[in-house]
């Protein structure tokens, strides 16, 4: 761990929150995708957060272990006018709910702000250490 460990830890949290925002943005962007019945639908993406250090160690920040993909069965819709529709006029649309995505986005935003706040406070703390004895 470097001299300013908590800055790196807060930075890892900011990176994680950024990944979360990105997946949420991707889910909202792909909400209206249409896939043919013989292909998988867009699966809702959710980042998986794990601690960076070994279990039982003092904090070492957070990292993104991977992106979990949701159900790719999607929702079967009847849309014969779509160019992707099969003979029965069915298509797959992603099982992504805008409401829960917006909630996720607010959570990711709050996560980002909390980590940025920790970063700012850690910087102030290090600076006040330098004023010891003056």
């Amino acid at each position, binding site marked *: 761990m*470097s*001299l*300013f460990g908590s*800055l*790196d830890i807060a*930075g890892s949290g*900011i*990176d994680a929150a*950024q990944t979360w925002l990105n997946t949420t943005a991707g889910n909202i962007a792909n909400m209206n995708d249409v896939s043919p019945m013989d292909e998988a639908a867009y699966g809702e993406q959710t980042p998986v957060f794990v601690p960076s250090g070994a*279990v*039982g*160690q*003092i904090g070492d920040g957070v990292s993104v272990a991977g992106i979990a993909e949701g159900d790719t069965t999607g929702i079967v819709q009847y849309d014969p006018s779509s160019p992707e529709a099969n003979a029965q006029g069915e298509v797959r649309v992603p099982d992504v709910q805008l409401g829960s995505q917006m909630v996720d986005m607010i959570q990711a935003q709050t996560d980002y702000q909390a980590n940025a706040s920790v*970063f700012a406070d850690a*910087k102030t703390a*290090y*600076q006040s250490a*330098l004023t010891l*004895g003056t």
Partner: protein
Amino acid sequence: MIAPIPPIAPLPAAPAAGGTAAADSGGNFSGSIANALDQVQQSQNTASTAEAQAAAGQGSVTNAMIDATQASLDTQVTVALLDKGVAAFTDIMNMTL
């Protein structure tokens, strides 16, 4: 189950006599400050690289800001130590004999 946090290992023993402390700390004041300044230079180089990458759209802005903050704090630590050392020197120089 939550794994328990292991106890913190005891610190290495402090140097016994005051006379050997200076030799153990690895050199004189100017050498330490020069080393510290080298490290400040290194962290500023890291910050510059990160900023250039962020400006080119390759790195992340977050990392650039973190590296810049660390470089700034490194500089502040070194300057604070330098000020303290110079103040000590001035105090000795102003001693009335």
